[in-house]
């Protein structure tokens, strides 16, 4: 319900964009200049001597990390929304129970287990890491898509049918706008999950920021760990802000918002 209360005043726009731009600028500065990394880390950890990874730069690792995360998130979004739409249609409704039960079961698996189990089944490298991330982050999107489409008010579907909409029109004009906030929440959850889990992927050969974190752990060097963590936290913040903007833009879309607000009032 909170989503509908926001209005498009310039104050809001500034408050949303300024931290996003500042953090993005900070991230770009940090990952491109090793002098900056050394300055910050030597200030925080005066006892340490090594502040950068011996073989790779932060820039390379960040690139690999972002690629892995975004690839897994895009894959799981596409498949999750597709399967989610499929099991909420009349033809696939029988599989909905199966999907929801599977979802509840997979949630009890720890992320590290999913990544590490990819090793006995699929071996070392970035491909097993990507597959494991995809399979694990599929379920937040899938579950939220199913819940989102199930919460569409039957009256709206009836109205759409009464207006003579085709199957596809009914889906993307009547149902999708109402399910959209829920789906976006699922994709956001999947992105944050992937960002953290991609760090663990370093143990099976995924070349992300986990590389510097794990070498920091083995060398007992907190500076290296912090260096990787800063970047991951900033990436998480930027992602959160972008998703917030996305769902805010969607819901502030004039009459659509009004319609939804009226509908939710009636439900109460």
């Amino acid at each position, binding site marked *: 319900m909170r989503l509908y209360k926001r209005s498009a005043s310039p104050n809001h726009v500034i408050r949303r964009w300024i931290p996003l731009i500042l953090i993005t600028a900070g991230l770009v500065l940090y990952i491109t200049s090793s002098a900056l990394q050394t300055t910050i880390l030597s200030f925080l*950890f005066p*006892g*340490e001597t090594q502040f950068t990874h011996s073989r790779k730069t932060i820039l390379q690792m960040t690139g690999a990390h972002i690629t892995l995360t975004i690839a897994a998130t895009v894959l799981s979004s596409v498949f999750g929304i597709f399967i989610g739409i499929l099991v909420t249609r009349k033809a696939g409704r*029988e*599989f909905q*129970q*199966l999907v929801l*039960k*599977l979802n509840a079961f997979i949630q*009890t*698996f*720890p*992320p*590290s*287990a999913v990544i*590490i*189990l990819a*090793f*006995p*089944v699929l071996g070392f490298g970035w491909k097993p890491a990507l597959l494991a991330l995809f399979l694990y982050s599929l379920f937040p999107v899938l579950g939220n898509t199913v819940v989102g489409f199930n919460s569409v008010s039957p009256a709206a579907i009836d109205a759409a049918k009464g207006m003579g909409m085709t199957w596809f029109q009914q889906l993307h004009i009547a149902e999708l706008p109402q399910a959209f906030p829920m789906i976006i929440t699922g994709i956001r959850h999947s992105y*944050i999950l992937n*960002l*953290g*889990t991609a*760090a*663990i992927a370093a*143990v*099976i050969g995924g070349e992300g920021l*986990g590389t510097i*974190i*794990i070498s*920091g*752990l*083995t060398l*007992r*060097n*907190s*500076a*290296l*760990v*912090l260096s*990787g*963590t800063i970047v*991951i*936290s900033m990436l*998480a*913040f930027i992602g959160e802000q972008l998703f917030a903007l996305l769902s805010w833009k969607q819901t502030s879309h004039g009459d659509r918002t009004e319609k939804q607000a009226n509908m939710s009032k009636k439900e109460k």
Partner: protein
Amino acid sequence: MNRNILQRRALDKQVAFALFLFLVSFTLPFLQSRENRISEEFTVSAFSLGIGPILLLLLAPLVILTSAFIPNRKRAALLSTVAAAFGIFSPLLVLSIVGNALVADLGAFARYSPASGMYVYLAAVSILYLMKQKAQSRDKVALFLVMLLAIGMGFIGMFDRLGILLEARNLGTRLWREILAHVRITGVSLLISMVIGIPIAFLAFINKAVRRVVFPILNVLQTIPGIALFGLLIAPLAALSMAFPVLREWGIQGIGNAPAIIALSMYALYPIIRYTYTSLSGIDEQVVLAAKGMGMNSTQIWKIVRLPLATVGILHGIRVALVQTLGNATLAKLIGGDGLGVLVFEGLGQASVDMVLLGMLLIIALTVISDRLFQFLINVFTPASLIREER
């Protein structure tokens, strides 16, 4: 009548999906053998198993296919129970027979383990179980009997050369020590986060200022990947133990179990505080007003109304924290802690698939068992009034 037909059609689609998975499993390598624990594996596909094992494996899909064509629903359900039980038993039997034959001429260190085909086969079987609306007692009894049979097969030595069991035997008492260490680390960190988290949640419920401070901090803590939180504590704790040597006598230093426990309890704070706070603030204001109207003072309202109603939510929070901590405790090994993570990362270091699998399976078993136990506990603690409401 109409509804009956609909349900039969529903069953058919899921049966078709399960049969498709069975078909896929037959095209993949079914099991693999190695000359020793780290050598290259030989895979054996299901087609080259010989006529006996193939017939055994085909039993489950054939029975389930027959059940789909039987109009009598009771008989169909009975057949699907039989099919599901065979679906678990026959791959185990095939695994032991073919596996033992495979390793017989490969030397004393040879071992066999299931391959991707068998995992897909078992996934197809689990769909047979999942597609039922509610697990019937008949299914549970059948599953229990199959388990007993498998354990019996293990006792007479049919699984002696199975990879993960060989690893478990090689580890000997160390295995028990690591399991106990894993449970201990999880338990201690959960206890710490409960002792700290639940009072904080109560304070946050009473005081708005506390709420404003606590939740932003928790949100930031949650975005730090678990693996990093361990490492970030190395330097501060090392500095602390340098400054106060007393701490080192208690085991608090940069590496070892202490930083792992601290990191895990910090991570478990989020679900505990969240769930406790939500269950306290979610209590219907009408109920509290009614209690006031009955003349209860604030102590009585807490004792008689708020606490009993919030207990279930708090227990749910502890359950979530427990499951999460059991998983994350794997990473404790990375900073020199004990637990099942030791097996996993040693296995990864030696590229020994069976050792990784053993560690991971034990962690998952611990997670599932403790989750079930907690679910049972929650059911016991749920007030009768809430149960009626759910229905």
